[in-house]
């Protein structure tokens, strides 16, 4: 399966929901104002948010009035183009060659799949012949360290850990030191899940960032937020709050295969403009794919191919 097919399959639920509604509105009849209402509803139901949806519809109507949209195929193509335009600015692959070690700090609310995603990331970087080290900074949840250890073994990466209940910043400190000493390319730090509403846990995260920054100038080079696609609209709130408190450089959206709300990616790109690095689209270790605006918009709206 190539990359596009993978994304396509991961987005099946969202696409089905979108296309049935859109096709029902435009197939075999002249395009009218009502058709746009139906399209608007379909896009809103994919959790794309009001602002972004209204923007999309406005652009589409413009084109229609200018006579650039005549058939239902035109509509599909135009939506795809517009969505791609929104997504293109956030398609930025993370360049890990800028620093050595390149430090990635992963954060997110509870249960979004941080640890699993880190394993997938480690696997991805190892395939690119990088030396990867993992840091088990989730010292809060029971057996979180063991979980990361199992993954470290499976993907054949080293791991730095303390015992449960210890200071996560201390683990981060040791991991950074070890990464330097062992000539590591990429250090990925796992952290405990925290709801974006808990200010004390945000402070803890700021401390981790400070500690890393003291050891290596400019580190963490990537503060990576993991969001769960099943959270839909709430994922956008999470992204906003985490970004305000901790300044995020990149986002990974997980569990896209389990929801019809894949449209939530759109407002993240449209209003927050934070680069989307990867998409999690399945349970297997290589079910993490780099985000591509073109592939994503085609996978979202194209029934054929």
């Amino acid at each position, binding site marked *: 399966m190539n990359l596009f097919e993978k994304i396509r399959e991961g987005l099946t639920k969202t696409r089905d929901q979108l296309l049935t509604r859109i096709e029902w509105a435009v197939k075999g009849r002249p395009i009218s104002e009502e058709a746009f209402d139906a399209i608007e509803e379909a896009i809103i139901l994919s959790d794309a948010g009001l602002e972004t949806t209204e923007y999309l519809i406005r652009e589409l109507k413009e084109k229609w009035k200018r006579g650039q949209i005549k058939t239902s195929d035109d509509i599909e193509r135009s939506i795809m183009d517009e969505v791609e335009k929104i997504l293109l600015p956030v398609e930025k692959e993370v360049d890990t060659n800028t620093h050595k070690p390149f430090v990635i700090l992963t954060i997110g*609310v509870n249960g979004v799949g941080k640890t*699993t995603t880190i394993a997938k990331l480690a696997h991805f970087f190892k395939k690119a012949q990088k030396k990867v080290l993992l840091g088990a900074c989730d010292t809060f949840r029971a057996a979180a360290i063991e*979980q990361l250890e199992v993954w470290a073994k499976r993907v054949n990466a080293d791991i730095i850990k303390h015992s449960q209940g210890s200071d996560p910043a201390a683990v981060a400190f040791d991991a950074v030191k070890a990464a330097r000493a062992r000539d590591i390319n990429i250090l990925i730090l796992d952290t405990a899940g925290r*709801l974006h509403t808990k200010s004390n846990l945000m402070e803890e995260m700021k401390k981790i960032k400070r500690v890393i920054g003291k050891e290596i100038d400019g580190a963490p080079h990537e503060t990576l937020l993991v969001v769960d696609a*099943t959270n*839909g609209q709430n994922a956008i709130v999470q992204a906003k709050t985490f970004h305000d408190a901790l300044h995020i450089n990149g986002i990974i959206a997980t569990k896209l295969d*389990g929801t019809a709300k894949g449209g939530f990616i759109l407002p993240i790109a449209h209003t927050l403009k934070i680069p989307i690095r990867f998409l999690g689209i399945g349970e297997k270790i290589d079910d993490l794919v780099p985000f591509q605006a073109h592939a994503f918009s085609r996978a979202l709206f194209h029934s054929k191919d």
Partner: protein
Amino acid sequence: MLIGLQGSGKTTTAGKLALFLRKKARKPLLVPSDVYRPAAIEQLVKLGNQIMIDTFTMPEINDPLAICREAKAYAMKHGCDTLIVDTAGRLHINDEMIEELINQKKLLTPRETMLVLDAMTGQDAVNIASTFNEKVGVDGIILTKLDGDTRGGAAISIKAVTGKPIKFIGVGEKLDAIEPFHPERMASRILGMGDIVSLVEKAQEVFDEKQARALEKKIRKEEFTLEDFRDQIKQMKKLGSIESIISMFPGLSKFRGAIDFSQAEQDIKKTEAIINSMTQKERLFPTIIDGSRRLRISRGSGTNVQDVNELLKRYMEMKKMIKKFTKGGIKGFPKQLFMR
């Protein structure tokens, strides 16, 4: 039997339920059957150890059915009256994994099949709940992560669409952060009206009546020491954060987020740290704390001498107040009231 998507909070909920049931004088047995996620079984074992509740494991076996079968036998033998079976997280659209769940259910014939749902899921929760209900059959729902910024509006739609009751809600990271679901309280939460009933219940659970009486006696005898003061702080903290307490008062919920409570939390923490850095003798007889002791205490607690001075000053004032009350106040007060 607990079922649900990945990351909805099944394992943590299993631990919370076990603790809840033991408080109700039952003898639960925790049964981790998630053989897929790395260290999932270990996670439940650790939670079980934390609350000292038995966890059934079969090392080297990765067949959920076998684990369930043996767990049943084990429970019979050891007199456990409630099995709490944690299952692997799965998508409601993954037929293969759903099939496994159906088989597990057939074998267990559970009294309650509970769907664990992340409250942040929003309206998609309805799809998830109805799919699980159609395919596996659900008796009740547990909503988790309600301590986030969601108000839990999905609760209404879930009940309306599936007709299944919501049985518990998860409201925090700690293992006692689970509450039976009360529709009227959820309604006032959704409308932002506070929840005084939950607050009173929580206070009853946290404050020990005997301890309170002992404290009252001490106050009467003017023996209220810094040690007692610290106990008070500890009990306060058990009630939850200041913010969460405030939000339970009707009419005060609008201040939530508007005022920064972290400063007040910080002050309480500081006070506790200072008292913790004293010797027991110092706590019992604060008058012996001289300049060099103050310096030591401030260093030990990571504060400065002014903070220690401030605390001691407040303590002395408090003692004076207590004296006034006990002399003429508390004893005389009711008399005056009735004599008039």
